[in-house]
């Protein structure tokens, strides 16, 4: 099959949509009813009459060797059906922490607090936890290191035998940074740190596992059912056809549910042992320890700029950690330094180290918010240093191609300039910079800040297979493997069907996220779901349409090339009297259904598709108490074509909200100097934003620049770029208000009071017109 055929099964790739009737409108979600009525069944809602509840005993120490596990009393407890530990024959299963590192499911060597040591299944979760509490474990505590900044110190305990360096420091270089700094009018250097963030999706991590002899069905809260199927079948040595994974709904993930967890395997083993379905969802506390995190970043950035605003050199370094196993502790952290702004001389150095803490998992725009925190504050500082508007400085450095990739491929589209200018316009940036907005109280200051961003992926890519089926009455079934993780995937795909086939949204039934019944899709993540799936959906629709037109041409005795679909009818463009209702087409009646298969075609060979963004905010700072109130936010995005304006805006506001969490309050706190244990493993001490922590006023500015070269729907990813520039935009606004640079995330009074006190009389930045 040629690449062209992949678009539609027949014929050439479709033209980009010219005018759209549904795409781009504000459309409420097609599954909103289920989600607001409470009828949607999430994996954690699944119950069976004979179901047992699983629970996991986890190592309470940062590093320890399990000497013995005594479950003798536990096994006799009422309601306890199975107890399993590293000594159980059923636990002889290996968990792949990386390509090269495989550890036992219950390995005696626990390299982080929260590593599973034993598990049980019982008739209620209460009894399961009674059972867990009754297990007696003897540990040999081992030396640990829980601060990545000390992992390479002499004498630091080794997390792995080879030491604490995951790989040798990765260096990227283009041009000559020494030369670049020599050419600069201003050179600044600063250190920055972003704290480790925890995903904490609302639905806990876990699954319900059920066997029918040798066939395993998993209802897993996941971003990708096929990814879970592949990993589980590999670990358990089962053919793919014997592992069915279902995840019709899921309650959030942000990258932490791209793959199954040890908990998935433990649930399957317990279900096998007891011959009953087992529900195993982690407790909230466990998810803080063992369900991933965003690596902390310890960055240093040296930057040179000329008076005209052109960057001459950037030198960026980062020390990060993915925890106790290889988990991308520095992945993508330098990408923005490499690629966001035009700069001929760039050097980056990434050092990924092991510490005794839970392994990271990809977290919404991996690496990018960290790098953005450094780069965007530096851009702001450079602007101040050369007395230039921070928007202007960025506009002076807009690249038209990807500088970091070999061969410097151009972007299919880049809206970075428009994000900056349109966002600034919507924010009334120039006016805000001119205005002195004193509150009347000396210690209450207002300031504005902004930041730009791109997301290194977000263009989507093969593979994806989608089936669209039209029933005899003209209604439609859409079958795709992709999970809707809350971004509106189902709604947007239904809109593509409605746009292409002219059917009403409520005539579309959707089946998704089930390896047993739906088509192949990669996990929903990387802001690639819409640009990956929507072209496949469109291709499937076109295939259906072509078959319909062929059939209609016979009924109408018309030339197929003169026919088109219009609101549930096939009409002739040549002769208006020639029309037939889809449900009246005789071929369709005879056949019962028409099936169209769509595949995601490859991306253009020599170009890169990235989304771009810019954000603007205003803050009010109480310099006496260190309190920051974020007053308003504008988010401008180039994510290609706007598919559903309603869910689009929702993503923008959600990304800003999560970015506010990173900026203001979120940080994993480890007792690094004493025990290495995590101190804030609950939602009280780990503070994510509430409704009172986000501004009442948030504005989304979608640029709606369809990207016809990227794919056949012209959409690019959105879910990740929306959270990248938020934190530095807030920090820049605080600087603008007070003259104090906050270089570590967590801008609460705990940090700010001292910074303000040290600066004594915080001075307002002069706003130059």
């Amino acid at each position, binding site marked *: 099959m040629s690449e062209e055929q992949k678009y539609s099964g027949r014929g050439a790739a479709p033209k980009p949509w010219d005018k759209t009737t549904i795409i781009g409108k504000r459309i409420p979600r097609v599954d909103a009813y289920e989600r607001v009525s409470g009828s949607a069944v999430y994996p954690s809602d699944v119950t069976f009459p004979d179901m047992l509840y699983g629970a996991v005993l986890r190592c309470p120490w940062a590093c320890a060797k399990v000497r013995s596990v005594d479950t003798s009393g536990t096994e006799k407890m009422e309601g306890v059906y199975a107890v399993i530990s590293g000594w159980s024959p059923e636990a002889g299963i290996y968990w792949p922490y990386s390509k090269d590192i495989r550890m036992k499911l219950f390995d005696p060597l626990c390299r982080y607090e929260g590593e599973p040591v034993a598990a049980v299944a019982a008739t209620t979760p209460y009894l399961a936890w009674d059972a867990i509490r009754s297990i007696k474990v003897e540990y040999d505590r081992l030396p640990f290191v829980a601060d990545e900044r000390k992992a390479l110190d002499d004498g630091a305990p080794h997390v792995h035998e080879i030491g604490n360096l995951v790989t040798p420091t990765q260096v990227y270089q283009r041009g000559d940074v020494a030369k670049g700094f020599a050419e600069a009018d201003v050179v600044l250097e600063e250190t920055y740190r972003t704290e480790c963030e925890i995903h904490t999706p609302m639905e806990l991590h876990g699954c319900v596992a059920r066997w029918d002899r040798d066939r395993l069905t998993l209802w897993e809260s996941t971003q990708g059912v096929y990814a879970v199927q592949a990993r589980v079948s590999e670990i358990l040595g089962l053919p793919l056809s014997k592992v069915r994974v279902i995840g019709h709904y899921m309650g959030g993930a942000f990258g932490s549910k791209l793959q199954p967890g040890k908990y998935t395997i433990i649930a399957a083993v317990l279900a096998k042992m007891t011959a009953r379905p087992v529900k195993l969802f982690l407790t909230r506390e466990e998810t803080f320890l063992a369900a991933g995190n965003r690596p902390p970043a310890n960055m240093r950035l040296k930057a040179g700029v000329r008076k005209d605003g052109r960057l001459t050199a950037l030198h960026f370094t980062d020390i990060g950690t993915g925890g106790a196993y290889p988990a991308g502790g520095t992945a993508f952290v330098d990408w923005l330094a490499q690629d966001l702004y035009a700069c001929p001389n760039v050097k980056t150095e990434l050092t990924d180290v092991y510490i005794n803490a839970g392994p990271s998992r990809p977290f919404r725009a991996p690496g990018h918010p960290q790098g953005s925190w450094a780069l965007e504050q530096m851009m702001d500082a450079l602007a101040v240093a050369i007395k230039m508007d921070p928007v202007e400085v960025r506009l002076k450095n807009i690249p038209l191609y990807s500088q970091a990739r070999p061969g410097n491929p151009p972007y299919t589209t880049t809206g970075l300039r428009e994000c900056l200018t349109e966002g600034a316009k919507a924010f009334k940036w120039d006016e805000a910079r001119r205005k002195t907005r004193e509150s009347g109280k000396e210690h209450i200051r207002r300031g504005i800040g902004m930041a730009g961003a791109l997301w290194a992926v977000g263009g989507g890519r093969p593979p994806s297979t989608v089936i669209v089926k039209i029933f005899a009455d003209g209604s439609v079934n859409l079958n795709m493997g992709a999970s809707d993780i809350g971004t509106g995937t189902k709604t947007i795909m239904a809109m593509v069907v409605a746009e292409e086939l002219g059917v009403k949204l409520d005539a579309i039934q959707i089946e998704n996220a089930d390896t047993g019944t739906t088509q192949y899709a990669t996990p929903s993540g990387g802001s690639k779901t819409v640009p990956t799936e929507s072209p496949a959906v469109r291709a499937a629709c076109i295939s259906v349409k072509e078959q319909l037109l062929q059939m209609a041409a016979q009924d109408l005795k018309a030339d197929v090339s003169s026919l088109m679909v219009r609101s549930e009818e096939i009409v002739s463009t040549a002769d208006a009297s020639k029309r037939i209702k889809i449900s009246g087409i005789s071929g369709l009646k005879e056949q019962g259904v028409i099936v169209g298969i769509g595949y995601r075609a490859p991306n253009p060979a020599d170009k890169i598709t990235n989304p771009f963004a810019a954000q603007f905010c205003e803050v009010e700072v109480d310099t006496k*108490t260190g309190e920051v109130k974020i007053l308003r936010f504008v988010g401008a995005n180039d994510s290609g074509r706007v598919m559903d304006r309603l869910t689009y805006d929702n993503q923008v506001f959600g990304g800003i909200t999560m970015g506010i969490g990173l900026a203001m309050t979120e940080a994993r706190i480890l007792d690094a*100097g004493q025990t290495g244990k995590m101190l804030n493993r609950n939602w009280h001490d780990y503070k994510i934003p509430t409704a009172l922590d986000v501004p009442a006023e948030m504005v989304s500015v979608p640029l709606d620049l369809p990207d016809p070269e990227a794919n056949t729907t012209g959409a690019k990813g959105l879910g990740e770029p929306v959270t990248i520039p938020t934190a530095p935009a807030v920090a820049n606004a605080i600087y603008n208000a007070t003259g104090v640079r906050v270089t570590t995330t967590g801008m609460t009074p705990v940090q700010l009071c001292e910074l*303000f006190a040290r600066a004594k009389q915080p001075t307002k930045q002069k706003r130059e017109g």
Partner: protein
Amino acid sequence: MLPAFDYVRPKSLTDVFKHLASKGTTVKAGGTDLFGCLRDGVFQTSGLVSLNNIKELHGIADTGNGLRIGALTTITEVATSPVIRNQYPALAQAAMEVASPQLRNQGTIGGNLCQKPRCWYYRGEFHCLRKGGETCFAVTGQNQYHCILGGDGCYIVHPSDIAPALIALDARVQIAGSKGARYVPLEEFFMSPTKDPKRETVLMPDEIVAGVLLPAPSKGLRSSYRKVRARRSWDFALASVALALTMSDRRVASAHVVLGGAAPVPWRSREAEEVIAGKQLDAATITKAAEAAMSKAQPMDHNHYKLALFRGLIEEQLQAMAG
């Protein structure tokens, strides 16, 4: 998941005390703090004695010479009571700042006064001094949320918003026990770690808080409560200040300045009170009072910020009173 416990809901106080006499039982009011402690294994209980059916512990009543707030009155009821909002604004403001709306709907004023410390070592899997261990982990650990005043062996801060406001307003706590009732000024209700690091209050095992008594507001009484926290809802105070000043002829006739988030017990700053007593609240006096409040503070490695924060907060609140 909660461990197992016996459960009883007596109909009379006499029965409450009977059940509390059994070893290892625990009083349950709203339960919002208790269930967290049981879930985290902070302490164990053999049985819960629920106060929910004890009618006389509910409600807000005018005593003719002030107010009695029954121990089981919910935080929401305290926050929204018109009489409290009018006459004791500091208390209403403090109540409004507690936890989250749902927790305020369930948590009680008595429970708020008897809640366990929020120290993450105490609440976590650490056998700390307060739990009968040898050491306070905060001393050399992550102590950004710990005390700067009054620490002694244990360095928690008292978590209540309501207590500083009540102390500022001269409240007394009504304690009921099998041997009868006693009344304790709220300021003396809390146990400093110097006296006993394993107890938070003077309550004996067979006693409960029955209510809180507020004196009638004196003429010229102005009160306020202000809380600074990392997150704007659902968060304990990094620092809070309750003020109750009786103003007379533009001068401070009497002053109560009580700090939350500062010490293991709600901390009455007599140093600040002395500075402002008898004075007009001019800028110099205010600055001096704020300085005085922190004059004996002994910050730990990670909580130096509290000095600047308390100074700023006290200044801000006194200025608001003056203005």
